[in-house]
């Protein structure tokens, strides 16, 4: 026994302490508890892993029987195999860094203890998710992180847009969870168990399904679940809105860990997926479409966090693409490297926003390189990693994915390469806009200066501002008006984690993760490396950077001209392909209308209220008669007792109830 249960227990203790007593504790104590428990968890992971390391076979710890019903026996069981080990290190490691960072970023915020309580709770559920040795325990963690995500997106709950975004994330995730639940039911029917090892062992015996069958249905439903959690098309709409949450949350939950749960789950179920080529194809196509759509949207956004949010969706699409073509190892590799550089991007963006007094619009930045050199230096590491500059971590995992995709389908490969170029372009664009050129903060353009440009960023605020204390932007505007807006460097607790992540983003790819993961994943066919594939991939990334440089540094007037020329297409992309509007039109509005006219006016007011009122008046009628019996006179009651006694005895006597 390695006491695996201690790993999630530490953050849970932190949650309990901060959640129950945080209001009374000083900030230093809250930080100590929050960071301390997560670091303790990280250290325990290291200790455990060093003890059980070769880990060719899973290390399983059974604690209790959880559900025993008929043939279904679901134990309460934690397990570590190499896949879990990687996830554990990423979750606790990056989690620790982000906790440290958050103590600086959130220092001035109200609800400090609440924030860290939620964050610790999230760590608890995330660790349960990766440690759980059956689908149901995974699902517990899965729902738990969804809850924490909801709580943290809506952290500024006085802000209307934040609570709406929280609701949206929660509701969209329900669609995915529904699919996941159905998949679990089918797995129980098919395999009579939910434990990973047993399911996989049996699944390995099943013949490959070339037509739609049980395996395909299970996998498609799992895909629905994964798409909900990992923000894949068409359930991706919640993730950009989730940027309403504090930036450390975006980094931890909506970039590095929670959203990769879908990929993790897919890789866990790899054996089942391999038996269903049709579902695999679906996974690949969903991933590819997501990657392309999100990357193109990312090119047009002005809010720095929105850009990175779409970038996250796009990168997750890459991971699904990899999983879909059977390259589970590279998919997990990309999960890890992406966790490094995307957490870094978000934390860096947070540092930028912090230094800009909560300004998020890149049009108001520029030239920040001179003011915040450390942040720039670390962000630059993330930039080259995500753009795929050779020998950075992102380059390794991306090349591994692209290689596998080429062997599956050259068409997909070329689309993916194009997406890689777009990725490099939009990240470079955001970097150039933020750090190069002249500082534009002093000349704050009035809202609406860019025509339609601001409706999404500022539209919500019109009805929210008056009552809100927490509003970042209101704060920022007040700041800007009050005094000069010279950006300032973030404190050490914030750039320290940035530096660590920067180092990881650069060198993190030299560890050959797919090879390490081989014992935990079904054997994949080895493909010969072709040098030209890597050259094309690297070239695409560098080309993207170069184009961005031309457009935003060398010839700054070019983007506007291009925008004008593209017109409608640009606007369509800028509006995120109007997916939200389509959902509003097809699902949300009919639901609201139907609820209003049928459920509320018809069913609730008519039928249910009618029934309730009817029950009331019936009771009143009966009571009207019954009250004549209830005289309050003791002797009358006595007489009734006597009547009862005579009746019972008469019944017994005549009916012969007594022998």
């Amino acid at each position: 026994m390695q006491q695996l249960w201690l790993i999630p227990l530490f953050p849970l203790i932190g949650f309990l302490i901060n959640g129950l007593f945080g209001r009374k504790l000083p900030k230093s104590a809250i930080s100590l508890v929050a960071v301390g428990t997560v670091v303790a968890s990280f250290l325990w992971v290291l200790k455990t892993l060093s003890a059980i390391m070769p880990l060719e076979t899973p290390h399983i710890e059974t604690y209790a029987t959880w559900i025993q019903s008929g043939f279904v026996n679901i134990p309460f069981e934690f397990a570590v195999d190499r896949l879990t080990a990687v996830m554990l290190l990423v979750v606790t490691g990056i989690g620790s860094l982000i906790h440290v960072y958050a103590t600086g970023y959130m220092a001035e915020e109200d609800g400090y203890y609440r924030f860290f309580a939620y964050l610790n709770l999230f760590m608890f559920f995330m660790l349960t998710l990766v440690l759980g040795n059956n689908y149901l325990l995974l699902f517990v963690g899965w729902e738990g992180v969804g809850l924490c995500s909801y709580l943290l997106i809506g952290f500024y709950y006085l802000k209307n847009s934040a609570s709406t975004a929280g609701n949206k994330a929660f509701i969209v995730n329900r669609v995915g969870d529904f699919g996941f639940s159905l998949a679990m039911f089918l797995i129980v029917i098919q395999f009579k168990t939910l434990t990973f090892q047993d399911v996989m062992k049996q699944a390995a015996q099943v013949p490959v399904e070339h037509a739609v069958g049980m395996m395909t249905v299970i996998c498609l439903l799992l895909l629905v679940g994964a798409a909900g959690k990992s923000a894949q098309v068409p359930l991706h709409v919640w993730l950009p809105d989730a940027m309403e949450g504090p930036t450390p949350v975006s980094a931890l939950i909506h970039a590095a860990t929670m959203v990769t749960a879908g990929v993790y789950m897919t890789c866990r179920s790899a054996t089942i997926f391999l038996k269903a080529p049709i579902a695999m194809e679906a996974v690949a196509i969903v991933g590819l479409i997501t990657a392309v759509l999100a990357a193109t949207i990312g090119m047009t956004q002005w809010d720095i966090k929105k850009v990175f949010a779409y970038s996250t969706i796009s990168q997750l699409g890459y991971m699904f693409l990899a999983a879909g073509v059977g390259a589970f190892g590279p998919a997990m590799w990309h999960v890890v490297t992406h966790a490094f550089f995307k957490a870094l991007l978000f934390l860096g963006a947070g540092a930028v926003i912090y230094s800009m007094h909560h300004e998020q619009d890149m049009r108001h930045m520029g030239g920040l390189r001179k003011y915040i050199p450390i942040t720039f230096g670390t962000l630059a590491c993330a930039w080259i990693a995500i753009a795929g500059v050779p020998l950075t971590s992102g380059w390794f995992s991306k090349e591994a994915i692209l290689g596998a995709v080429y062997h599956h389908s050259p068409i997909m490969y070329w689309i993916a390469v194009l997406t890689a170029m777009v990725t490099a372009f939009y990240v470079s664009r955001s970097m150039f806009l933020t750090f190069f050129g002249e500082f534009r903060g002093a000349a704050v353009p009035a809202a609406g200066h860019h025509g339609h440009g601001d409706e999404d960023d500022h539209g919500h605020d019109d009805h929210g501002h008056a009552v809100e204390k927490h509003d970042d932007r209101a704060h920022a505007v007040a700041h800007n008006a009050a005094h000069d807006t010279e950006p300032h460097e973030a404190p050490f607790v914030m750039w320290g984690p940035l530096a660590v992540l920067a180092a990881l983003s650069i060198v993190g790819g030299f560890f050959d993760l797919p090879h390490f993961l081989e014992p935990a994943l079904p054997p994949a066919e080895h493909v010969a490396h072709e040098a030209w594939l890597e050259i094309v991939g690297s070239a695409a990334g560098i080309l993207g950077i170069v184009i961005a440089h031309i457009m935003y540094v060398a010839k700054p007037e070019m983007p506007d001209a291009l925008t004008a020329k593209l017109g409608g297409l640009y606007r369509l992309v800028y509006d995120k392909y109007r997916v939200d509007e389509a959902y509003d039109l097809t699902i949300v509005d009919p639901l609201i209308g139907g609820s209003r006219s049928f459920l509320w006016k018809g069913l609730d007011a008519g039928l249910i209220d009618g029934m309730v009122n009817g029950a009331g008046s019936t009771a009143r009628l009966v009571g009207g008669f019954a009250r004549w019996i209830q005289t309050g006179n003791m002797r009358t009651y006595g007489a009734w007792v006597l009547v009862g006694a005579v009746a019972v005895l008469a019944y017994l006597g005549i009916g012969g109830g007594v022998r």
Partner: protein
Amino acid sequence: MPPAPPAVPLTAYLIVSAILFSLGAIGFVIRKNVITMFMCIELMLNAINLSFVAFSYKHGTVDGHLFTFFVMVVAAAEAAVGLAIILTVYKNRNTLMADDIDSLKL
């Protein structure tokens, strides 16, 4: 005239018990004074005691006697508390008539 039975049948005791019990019940219903009603309850308890002792005779054990004994103890306790309640009610409402003590109905 037929010769008298050599001994009394057990049934006779039980019938006496039943008659006494029923008289107690009648008294409880027709009397208005709460003290008298309370006495009727005592009468009913006594009637049951007679049954117990009679059955005990039939079985040749003392179990019935012990039940009677316990009923007596309970009756004593009940009389003490019950009469105390009657005292309190009288102090508050200044009546002993059950028909006037009708605050069970609001």
